[in-house]
Structures are given as structure tokens and as C-alpha cells.
């Protein structure tokens, strides 16, 4: 019970941070929206011929949404690293506060703010011609999958944020995740890739997630990749949660010793 109230207190604090710095939300949204427009209006003419019966904007929107998530979650890593540097974490650690609540609170607020970012990106996509054919239940499934993905990758981000020596370094890891999005069927079908790259692209974690989102948005059903998508996200969540918590305990000690 105390863990829950502490987590809620920490989540409120963390949400305040987000709402007080709207520039971070804008920075997070700038790249996915910019890429969305670039792909639709500039590359779309050439790339769009490869997606068959599916409209190119419909094809890429899931990838753009994931991109929003991947750049958004880095903020959690940066916040956590700042808290470590400023001694705020040390203060919390000397207080009768559940250790996990510092991280869980951050994860909750990251999930809320990134879902909101995704919502904004979907609005922009609708404005430039995205036409999903889906029902409320499939939307709900999509929101659920996104929330799970954000939660899992936020914990991963916090794990790296705790390891980072500097605040700048804490945010850098999300570039790797962004790269994974490009080597996936987000923007072009994997058939067009070199065989060895295709093998990677088809088996990396982003792929079933993107395929499931696409299926939910276009067909209104989760499609066959849903189990792989769930397995990957739940797996990442479980491992990152455990790893981040154990690093949190250790790293906070080191920071205090310096």
C-alpha cells in the first residue's frame, strides 16, 4: 500500500516535470512528425509503389508512432540521470520511501505523456491522409499494446539512464532503438532488403509490434504477430524492470560515495 502511494506521489512529481517543460514534448514530436511529412510528401512517391494495395501513409503511420515512443522514452532516462546528479535520488534514499517508487513513478508518467504524444502524432497523420479502417475495440487494443510498449521501453531507458555517467549520455541510447525502426518493415517492406538484413529485420522485436499495429489499424484485428509482439514487450519489461531496479540500488550508492 505504501509502495502504491509513494509511486503515485513520484508519478505526480514526474508529470509536473513534463508539463512544466512543453519544449521537451515538442522536441519529441518534431522528428516523427517531420519524418511523417517527409515520407508522405517527398519519398512517398517513390517508396509508395512498393506497398501494394495499402496507401503509403497508412503503411508508415505505425512506424511513425513507434518512432514517437522511442524518442519520447529517452526523456525518462534524462530525468533520472539529472535526479542522480543533483542528489535528489540520494535524498529519497535516506527517506522511508519504497525504493521502486522512484522508478515506477517515472515509468507511469512516461507512459501517460508518451501516449499523449502518440495521440498527437495520430492526429497529424489523419490530417495528412491517414485513413484507418478500425473499430473502437481495435483502437483500445492498440492503446493497450502501445502502453505496454512504452512501459517496457521506459524501463529499458531508465536502466541506461542509471548507467550513464552524464545527463547527455543518458539520452543517447534511444538512437539505437530508432535505428531498429528503420531496419524493420516500418517504412519499406522487408522484401526489398538484402537477404541477410531481411533475416534480421524480420526477427527483431520491433517487427511483430509494427505488424500488429498495422493489422489493428488497417484490418481491425490483431493479426498473427500479436503473440510475438506481446512476448517481446513483456520480456523486455520484465528484464528491464529487474535490471533497472538492481542498478538503481547500486548506482545510488556509488553516487553517494562520490
Amino acid at each position, binding site marked *: 500500500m505504501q509502495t502504491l502511494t509513494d509511486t503515485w506521489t513520484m508519478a505526480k*512529481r514526474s508529470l*509536473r*516535470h513534463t508539463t512544466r517543460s512543453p519544449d521537451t514534448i515538442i522536441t519529441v514530436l518534431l522528428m516523427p512528425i517531420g519524418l511523417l511529412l517527409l515520407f508522405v510528401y517527398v519519398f512517398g512517391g517513390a517508396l509508395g509503389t512498393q506497398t501494394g494495395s495499402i496507401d503509403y501513409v497508412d503503411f508508415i503511420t505505425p512506424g511513425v508512432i513507434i518512432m514517437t515512443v522511442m524518442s519520447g522514452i529517452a526523456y525518462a532516462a534524462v530525468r533520472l540521470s539529472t535526479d542522480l546528479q543533483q*542528489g535528489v535520488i*540520494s535524498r529519497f534514499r535516506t*527517506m522511508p520511501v519504497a525504493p521502486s517508487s522512484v522508478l515506477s513513478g517515472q515509468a507511469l508518467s512516461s507512459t501517460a505523456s508518451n501516449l499523449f504524444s502518440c495521440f498527437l502524432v495520430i492526429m497529424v497523420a489523419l490530417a495528412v491522409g491517414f485513413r484507418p479502417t478500425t473499430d473502437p475495440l481495435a483502437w483500445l487494443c492498440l492503446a493497450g499494446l502501445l502502453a505496454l510498449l512504452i512501459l517496457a521501453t521506459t524501463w529499458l531507458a531508465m536502466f541506461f539512464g542509471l548507467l550513464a555517467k552524464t545527463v547527455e549520455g543518458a539520452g543517447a541510447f534511444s538512437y539505437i532503438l530508432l535505428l531498429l525502426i528503420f531496419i524493420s518493415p516500418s517504412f519499406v517492406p522487408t522484401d526489398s532488403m538484402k537477404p541477410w538484413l531481411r533475416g534480421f529485420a524480420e526477427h527483431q522485436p520491433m517487427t511483430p509490434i509494427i505488424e500488429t499495429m498495422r493489422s489493428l489499424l488497417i484490418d481491425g484485428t490483431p493479426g498473427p504477430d500479436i503473440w510475438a509482439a506481446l512476448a517481446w514487450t513483456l520480456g523486455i519489461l520484465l528484464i528491464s524492470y529487474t535490471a533497472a531496479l538492481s542498478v538503481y540500488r547500486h548506482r*545510488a*550508492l556509488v553516487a553517494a560515495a562520490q
Partner: protein
Amino acid sequence: MRNTYKTMNAIEVHNLVKGYKDVSVLHDVSFTVTRGTVFALLGANGSGKTTTINILTTLIKPDGGTATVNEFDVGEQASKVREQISVTGQFAAVDHVLTARENLILMGELRHVTDPKQIAAGLLEKFDLNEAADRPLATYSGGMRRRLDIAMSLVGDAPVVFFDEPTTGLDPQSRAGMWRTIRELVENGTTVFLTTQYLDEADRLADTIGILHGGRIVASGTPAELKGTLSTGLVELEFGDEQQVSTAQRVLSAQHDVRRVDSKLLVASDGTVGEMVDLFVRLKDNGLEPTEFSTQPPTLDDVFFKILDDEKHEEKEERHADAH
């Protein structure tokens, strides 16, 4: 919150050892702090004061020895210890995005006090932060952040409060305010553990002082006891002319440690009547008569420097012995 305790000590530290990599910071530190008193851990930069605080406040684990706070072991019962303590570290650990009021309310919520808002309002008033209470901290001066930092550690009335160099970097007015705060805490039964580099601060505030040097407590006691270990107060003498000063210096040097500062002589003395009489008789016998004289009791500074001096001598002797 306040239970009945088995002992009178709020803090007990036995044979604490701590090192980082190859550097040994604490060799063998032991001391106790009586409940409801102020204990000052005095030491130079790098003497291990912060390491000691970090161990007592559950932030780091010692390599050896034991420490308890209100009878809870800092290692094995860390979460119990955290319910007993609050800590103000050396650098203001405040949330820069939140306002002062929000920072205080956050502390209240995390400490599960019944009315965080009311407690926040009271502390803002007390620490003279009312005017800026709802401004983001980015606009605060260093002194204001420090005051907020200290106010934050008072939320929840922890029975044992730790301050790591609480007045370093404060202006004289804020420093006086800090001293007042510490006295009030003790009047209300709180135990205060503070570290400081300032001897006058320890002298004014502390019931007990421990001097940390070379990873050990080299001296401890009340300020009076520590001063009592020195026999050397000073007698300050002034004379009418230069010739008298130099004659007096020569005459007194036979029996006393004499230093000359400008036209004054500073004579080491235990300040007893017998010794004073002896001193003046000696001067009179040589036809010398001081125009002014005053006595100064030993200060904590004298104690501190003497201890450091003795330590150095010992180290030298040890090295000397090792060489043979």
C-alpha cells in the same frame, strides 16, 4: 514515533572501517551520541566526515564495524533507520523544476504526514521563503536553495537529524539562522549530528565534539573538556618601549613559550594564579613593567591544531621507527 529506548544513545558507532578501491577513508571510527544532544564531527576536507554521514544515513555500507541509529542497525535495518532520520547533504538536493512549496509538499507526502500543505506553509514562513514560495527554483539564489534544502529535511520531525556542513557557503545572517534552527531542534528533543570545518561552529553548537583525522576519532569530548586538555592559554603583554619588549622576551623565554607579535608578547601559560605571580615577579626582578596585560583561555582552534600537530609528530616517529 518516539519509543522508549534501551540506551541513552541515539547513535552508536563501533570500529567503523570504510575504503574506496585502494584508498582507506575510515580506519577505526567509534563514538556515541546521546539522545537529544548536538554532536559535531569536526575534521579537515577529505577526513571522512561525509563518508561517516553516508554510512549512518544508509547510503553506503561500511567495510567493517557496526553503526546503529536509535538502536536500528544501519545495514540490516536500513528501512527502519530511514524512518528515524532526515538528512541535509552537502549540496542542496532540491527539485529545480518544482517550486519551493511543491518541494516541501512532496517531502510531506513521501513522509506520509497528515497535512503536507500546512507543514509546507509553516516552514516557508519560518525559513523566510514566503515571497518566493511559488516561483520555480531556477530563479533562486544559492542561499535560498540551501534554506529550502534544510527546511525540506525538517518535514516530518525525524528524531535524528543529520547536517553535512550545513553552513558552508552561507552568509553570516543565514548561518546565524541555521544555528538557531539547530538549537530549536535540540530544545524539542531532536538529536542533531552535524559535520563542520568551522571550529567556532562546533564550539557554539555542540554538546560533544569528535575530531576526525586520519580515519580515526583522535579526540572527543565537550568543548570545555577538549580545551581542558590544553594547558596553554595565552597571556598578552605590552611594554612602553622596544628595549623593554626585547628584554622581557629574553627573560621569559627561559621558562615559557614566548611569541612576539608586533610590539606585543604572547606568553603561553595555564593561567593559574601561581604561574601569573611567578611571571610578574620575574619581570619585576628585571626592572620590567608591562603597560597592558590580558589573558586568553585556550580556544578550540588551539586544541585542533595541537592535535593535528601531535598526530604529525607521531606519524613521523612511526616512519622513523619503521626505517630502523
